[in-house]
């Protein structure tokens, strides 16, 4: 039955829902690597740029890349404690969103920091990757905790 929210203007409920069969395509090995507790990155064979998240094709020069395993310990590059979020993540609040620097990786990696109080996180904090035992096939299969 249609839900009515108001009459002038007439406001009615409309529902929309869809399931996608989404392909991670050429970066599938990143997500498959998380299952094996590995952070799989790529390195450009032409210019040497390193990418995590990985890219099959270099985002700097367009060259082809090769896979390699990234280190799992690094430092917090920047972070924020979230007290509001999109609807899908409201149940997670509050949580710490952070970019992590890893040695030998040119990019910084977006992740969540767990295993400590939000107010204990600081820029430069040493952190290490932790992995879900039961994977969900999303980037949340990995997060970082203080070393």
């Amino acid at each position: 039955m249609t839900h009515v929210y108001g009459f002038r203007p007439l406001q009615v409920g409309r529902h929309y829902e869809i399931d996608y069969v989404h392909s991670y395509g050429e970066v599938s090995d990143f997500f498959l690597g998380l299952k094996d507790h590995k952070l799989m990155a790529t390195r450009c064979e032409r210019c040497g740029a390193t990418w995590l998240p990985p890219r099959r094709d270099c985002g700097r020069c367009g060259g082809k890349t090769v896979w390699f395993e990234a280190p799992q310990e690094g430092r917090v590059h920047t972070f924020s404690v979230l007290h509001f979020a999109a609807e899908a993540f409201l149940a997670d609040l509050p949580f710490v969103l952070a970019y992590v620097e890893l040695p030998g990786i040119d990019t910084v990696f977006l992740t969540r920091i767990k295993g400590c109080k939000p107010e204990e996180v600081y820029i430069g904090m040493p952190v290490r990757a932790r992995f879900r035992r039961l994977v969900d096939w999303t980037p949340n299969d990995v997060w970082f905790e203080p070393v």
Partner: protein
Amino acid sequence: MRKVCVVSGGITKFAKANLLTQEAMVKDAVDYALTDLDGRLDYKDIQSTICTYFSDHFNSQLLFDSLTQDYLAMCPRPSMRIEGGGATGGLGIRAGYMDVASGLSDLCLVYGFEKMSEVSTAKGNEFIALASDTDFDYPVGGFYSGYYATMAMRHMHEFGTTAEQFALIAVKNYDNAFHNRWAQKHERWTLEGVLKAPMIATPLTRPMVCVMSDGAACLILCTEEWAKKLRPKGDYAVITGVGCGTDTMRLGDRPHGDVIPLPGEDPAKYSYLKGRWPGLHCFRAAREAARQAYQMAGIRDPLHEIDFAEVHDAYASSELQTYEDLGFCLYGEGGRWVERGGPYLGGELPVNPSGGLIACGHPVGATGIMQGVFTLWQLQEAIARHCSDPAQGIDGSRIQVPGARRGLCHSHAGTGTYITVNIFERPQ
């Protein structure tokens, strides 16, 4: 390329109200712009249109551009939809500029809209976050305020910028909007009030973040010949510079390197950054857009050669970051420039005299065009006429930049993925 002029603009009152359909909001904005030309422009004289809106999720109607084109009685004239996240409106002005400059059209109506009130704020934030990489970024953060907060934190770390300096920008923009009848928020905030307000994502509190909105805006772009006919007193604007920059979809993929110098700048000026640019704390796309627009407009000293700017302040922090990208102050000096009064009315270069997105609202597809409308009205010295509402005690003359001859509007998408800078000037 032909000279492109801006002769009129219109906006609807931004509100999260869900009262009219999108096409009716657009019609109201267009009617406002036509009325302001005192009947000198007829509907039949419009040769082409550019339609801008952001999200099919918010608007739950594909091909909304055809629906609005039809509703405006513009068929069968040429039209095109432009979409580029938060920069949708700025890109629309760029597309309209291209239409007229190229000779494809002598008179182009650029209109944009968004209606964000059909879903809850949390759901709306989810839709907006789908404009981040949905494989790697959305599932982790899923919230633009969160992404911008991490940039703000890094800016604070790199340069010693403070939450108080971000808060000053929010206070400034609410103060300006208090004199603008079009603004969604007529609120007075103190520095302490902004800092103590509910935290959204550290260091950004609720009043430092723009709000969702319904609204429409339009600008009429044309050749110089048409401009002289439509504005016989010469009270129109000329677009003297357009620029557009881009950056990586994922914020974390941004490199560290050397600053792109603005026209006439010695790159050595930035040696103190030691190659730490743009990283996550600066917007390379804004710098690139500014470089192009300044080059085209012949601007060598933006702080002294631009009279005011309408800047995409979706967050108080990103307004501060943008001062530096646009060359209003050095990288790292944004916080001190605010404290010195630089971006205030009466300051060196007033930024967001309208109140910006923070106070005016951010109906995405209309926003960049709204900034263009306020920029035109400033150059016409018509802010008092358009923005006052005596019944509410609103005196728009308080936010007119006296004698303004050259204005900048800056439109910004994603985490800085698309950014446009458009320069409007009074005719010589």
